[in-house]
Structures are given as structure tokens and as C-alpha cells.
């Protein structure tokens, strides 16, 4: 048997169920990998070694007694540190919540545990999920396992790096503007942003409530289908979570889609896109054609990406997003007041407004302050119509484009990022440059559509390249099947970072 940490979640679950290995062995293998490699990566904010071994032991005991096992029994999983858990801390990689211990557990995490998953720990992220590189973490950045001089993407950078570096069999992230898909692409893993309302947000620390979704980050498409099936479904504790039955995503996965029509949004293939990424996606179109699919050109005019003479990108979607998301954030983050929980200033202050303002000024990092300020401005008297309302109208135009495009095809094929992973410090001086790292992912959040990022190859420099499939609402099953067709046929290089074999 190959190394336990090289198995996908699905294979590992089968190996545990068949008795080829035990949940304790698998968990210990990951804890050992974390002990030897996470110093170089910093994927985890906190690990739960003792608790994880206990969980694993109870799964092994249940199996020994002949009890029915869940679909993830014995599979060690990492969760992003903005998902509430009654065990350990829930910090959002912020000084504001450095010691916060949640009084309840997020529904998605509870469902994973009910399915037998072993929770290894909480992963690093951009503070409050605001960022695209994990450089905004108050706990220090996570490094990309493919090149530790480069960012893993963000905000779910710790989860992506953990999966890529074999420090977890799979992970859970959250995606408000690309925070699952962009780091998945940078780290060479699979990441799903589900349809808005597919997965309960209960226990997900809110950033942009009309955009946030929790989703899986995995080594292959089958694992994403497996985890999505576990965490999806209605929840009375999230009124925006849609109570619609969850298909058995794995059951249909191996069945190719007959006559698949793939839409290629022409606006996404401009000079804004890195040449190697464009070539990889063109190659993917060839793979699909060889499988009998047809590629049709479609248009998303309001998701257009322009490039000016100085090489500066611009997009209506990014502009609308940074009004809508920050407006929602300014409201959501008002709860951190230094009174009920979270950081409180140690200074003597005279009144309650000073207590709020100083506690928040001390507890939040620069990017969080910037977004709260931007959102507060967009919602403030006199500017509400010009900014917030305008952005909501453009949001509808963006969604209408997708609705139209998706009448001509089953799924859209698009880049995930304009370039492969960038270097530390490359975009930290200019917030706008960082925002533009999400130029291809933001539209799906604004439109509420499911989008699945999968590896599409490696660049000449050996960095992962991703692509994404975007479909109509609740079309996750189609996305998984279409992605599995490519994964089976594409003959991609092994998506395992070289550092792993060098270090072991």
C-alpha cells in the first residue's frame, strides 16, 4: 500500500472500511506529516492531535463492533479557522478573536463529524476572509507548497496548502469572491464554491452574507463530490439555506455527459490572461472535443476585463463586488465591539464609543479596516444610491448575462486566476492589485452560481494552473461529471508538490 497521506479521501475511507488501515493509523500519519512539514508551510493555526486520535479510536471501535460507518469514517480533514467549533479556538486569523472559543459548532463541521471525518485542526486564512494571498493573517502567512517563496492564494490559503502538501486528506474553506477557487488553483487542488444556499452558513463567521458559501477543497473531483454531498442540504438555522434534496454526486460521477456543451466566455480570454493559462484552457477544450463535447462561444459583457495602456486590469464585476461585499462586511463586523466577546482595549476609556473604537482599532488589521471603511462609506447617507444601489443593479446585469449564456450551453469554462501564484509582497502595497487577483471568480459569487476549480496543468516554472467550470444554480452534479470527464482524459502531470518527497 502506498503512503497513507497520498490516498484521496475516498480511497482512504474505503481502506479504513475494509480494514487495510485504521482510522488511528491514518490520523497519526497526518499528524506526523504536520509535525515534519508544517513548519515550512504554516497551513495550520491550531491542531487537535489528542482529540483527533480519540475520534479516530472511536471510529475504529465502531468498526470492530460491526457498526455502520459514515462515508468519511477515519478521513482526517482540516477546516478553515472561520468555522465555529466548540473545540479549540475560532480566530479568523485575527487579533480580534485571538482567544475566541465558540459556544456552538458550524453545521458543515457537525455534518463532517457525523460522517466520520476526523478534524485535524483549523487552517490559516486572510483575516476575516478578506484577501487573496493569506498575507493578511494576523498569525503570519501560509506558504505555497509548490514554491515557498510564493503565496498559496486566499483567503482559504491554509486549507489549500494543507491539501496540496498532504497535511490533510481534504479540507473545508469558504468562498465570498473566490476564496476557495483561487487558492485551489494556486496550490493545484480541486475547490468547489457551491450554489448560494446549497450549504448551510450556520457557524461560518460572516463576511459578505449574500455571497459567502462553504465548500470542499480536495485532491480530486471525486473527493469534492464526496464532501459536497456530506455538507450540503437544508438547515433550519440558516434561513438562506435551500431545503432541496442533495443528489448522490458520486453515483453519477463516472458517467460522462452525452453531448456536453461547454460555453467559452470570450470576455475572459483577453490579453489580461497569462499566456500559459490561456494555452492550458485551450488544451482543455481540445480534450473536451475529443470526448464529444462541443465548445460554443458565449458572452458575459458585464464581466468583461479591460486592460489599459499601463497594463492595469479593470472589470465591472470587481467594482460591484468591492461595494457589495464591503457594505455587507461593514454591517457584519459591527458585532465586534469589545463588549460581548473578542478583543477589548486594556486602556482606560471614558465612554462606550471610545471603548468600541479603540478596541476595534487595536483588534482589526489594515485590510479589514479598509473594507469596513469602504463599506461604511458606500452605505452612508448621500452616497448609498450612487454606490451601494448602483452596485446592486450592476450585480443583476452580471447575473442576467450568466442566465443568457447558460441557455446556449450546459457549463462555462473559464480561468480561475489571471496568473499562477505570485510572490510574497508583490501586491501588498496596492490593495486594488490584490482585489484584481479575483477578477475571474467574483462574478459567480455575485450571481450565486456554483463554480468548480480543478487543476489544468503546470506552468513552465512548475506552478499549478487551474480552470473553473461554472453552471446554473444547483448544477453541482453536472459540474462534477464534466470535471471528472476532463480529469480522466487529460493525462495531467502528478499534482504533488516536489517538496513532499524531498522532505520525507
Amino acid at each position, binding site marked *: 500500500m502506498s503512503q497513507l497521506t497520498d490516498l484521496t479521501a475516498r480511497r482512504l475511507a474505503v481502506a479504513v472500511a475494509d480494514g487495510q488501515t485504521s482510522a488511528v493509523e491514518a490520523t497519526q500519519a497526518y499528524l506526523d506529516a504536520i509535525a515534519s512539514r508544517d513548519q515550512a508551510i504554516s497551513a495550520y493555526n491550531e491542531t487537535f492531535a489528542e482529540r483527533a486520535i480519540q475520534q479516530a479510536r472511536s471510529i475504529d471501535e465502531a468498526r470492530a463492533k460491526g457498526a455502520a460507518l459514515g462515508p468519511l469514517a477515519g478521513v482526517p480533514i482540516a477546516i478553515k479557522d472561520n468555522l465555529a467549533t466548540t473545540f479549540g479556538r475560532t480566530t479568523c486569523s485575527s487579533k480580534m478573536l485571538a482567544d475566541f472559543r465558540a459556544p456552538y459548532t458550524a453545521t458543515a463541521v457537525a455534518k463532517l463529524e457525523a460522517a466520520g471525518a476526523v478534524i485535524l485542526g483549523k487552517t490559516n486564512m486572510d483575516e476575516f476572509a478578506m484577501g487573496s494571498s493569506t498575507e493578511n493573517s494576523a498569525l503570519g502567512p501560509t506558504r505555497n507548497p509548490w514554491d515557498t517563496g510564493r503565496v498559496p492564494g486566499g483567503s482559504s490559503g491554509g486549507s489549500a496548502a494543507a491539501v496540496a502538501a498532504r497535511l490533510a486528506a481534504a479540507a473545508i474553506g469558504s468562498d465570498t469572491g473566490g476564496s476557495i477557487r483561487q487558492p485551489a488553483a494556486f496550490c493545484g487542488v480541486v475547490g468547489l464554491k457551491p450554489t448560494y*444556499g446549497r450549504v448551510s452558513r450556520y457557524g461560518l463567521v460572516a463576511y459578505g452574507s449574500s455571497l459567502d458559501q462553504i465548500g470542499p477543497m480536495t485532491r480530486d473531483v471525486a473527493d469534492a463530490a464526496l464532501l459536497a454531498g456530506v455538507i450540503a442540504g437544508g438547515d433550519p438555522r440558516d434561513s438562506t439555506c435551500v431545503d432541496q434534496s442533495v443528489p448522490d454526486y458520486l453515483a453519477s460521477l463516472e458517467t460522462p455527459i452525452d453531448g456536453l456543451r461547454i460555453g467559452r466566455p470570450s470576455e475572459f480570454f483577453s490579453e489580461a490572461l497569462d499566456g500559459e493559462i490561456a494555452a492550458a484552457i485551450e488544451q482543455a477544450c481540445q480534450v473536451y472535443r475529443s470526448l464529444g463535447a462541443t465548445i460554443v462561444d458565449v458572452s458575459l459583457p458585464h464581466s468583461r476585463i479591460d486592460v489599459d495602456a499601463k497594463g492595469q486590469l479593470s472589470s465591472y464585476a470587481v*467594482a460591484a463586488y468591492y461595494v457589495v461585499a464591503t457594505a455587507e462586511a461593514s454591517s457584519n463586523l459591527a458585532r465586534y465591539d469589545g463588549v460581548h466577546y473578542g478583543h477589548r482595549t486594556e486602556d482606560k476609556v471614558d465612554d462606550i464609543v471610545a*471603548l468600541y473604537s479603540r478596541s476595534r*482599532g487595536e483588534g482589526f488589521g489594515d485590510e479589514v479596516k479598509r473594507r469596513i471603511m469602504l463599506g461604511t*462609506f458606500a452605505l452612508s447617507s448621500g452616497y448609498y444610491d*450612487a454606490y451601494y444601489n448602483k452596485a446592486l443593479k*450592476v450585480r443583476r446585469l452580471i447575473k442576467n448575462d450568466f442566465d443568457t449564456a447558460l441557455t446556449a450551453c450546459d457549463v462555462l469554462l473559464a480561468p480561475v486566476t489571471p496568473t499562477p501564484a505570485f510572490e510574497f509582497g508583490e501586491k501588498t502595497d496596492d490593495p*486594488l492589485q490584490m482585489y484584481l487577483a479575483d477578477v475571474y471568480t467574483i462574478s459567480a459569487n455575485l450571481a450565486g452560481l456554483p463554480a468548480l476549480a480543478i487543476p489544468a496543468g503546470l506552468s513552465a516554472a512548475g506552478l499549478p494552473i487551474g480552470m473553473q467550470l461554472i453552471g446554473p444554480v444547483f448544477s453541482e452534479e453536472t459540474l462534477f461529471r464534466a470535471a471528472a470527464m476532463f480529469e480522466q482524459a487529460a493525462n495531467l502531470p502528478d499534482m504533488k508538490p516536489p517538496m513532499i518527497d524531498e522532505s520525507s
Partner: protein
Amino acid sequence: MSPKIDFDLTRHIGLLSRLELSDDEVQALADHLAHILQYVDKLQELDTDNVEPMAHAVAIHNVLADDVIGQSLTPDAALANAPQRDGDFFKVPKVIGDSQ
């Protein structure tokens, strides 16, 4: 289109945001906000006169729960993360001044 984001307006937004900011922070934020809002002004190129604003991506409807007593947090659980407590209360500095 965009208003002039100067030091004073940024300081005012800081107050509305309940963020205490140093002068250096205000100046840096003024520059960043001006830059970002100039970019956001791109939205004004689009004619949206007959477009309905879209606050949510999927149809949202009211969800009504049965009026039954369920489990809720105990006072100790609710206060467990409080920076300061006084019995079963969150403790804060004096909110109302002594003067009339």
C-alpha cells in the same frame, strides 16, 4: 462622480465605522479609498435606469419556525467570552455621563 476623499471625510468615516485611527492611518486610508472609489466609478459607465437592484442571488423568502421552546445558550456559555462580566451581565464603562 466620486466625492473628494480627504483627511476629514476619512476621519468622519472612521467615526461612523467605530474605528480609532492614527493620523497616519487616516492619511493612508484616504489615499487607498480615493484610489478604490475612482475604480468603482467605472460602474457609472453603465445605464442601470430600468434595472432592479439585486440584493440576493437566489429568491429569499421568510422562514417561519414553530413557536416552541428549544435549547439556547446558558448565561455562562453566553458570557464565557466576555472581556469583562459582572454576575450575569456584560460589564462596560459608564455609558451615561454624570452631567445633565
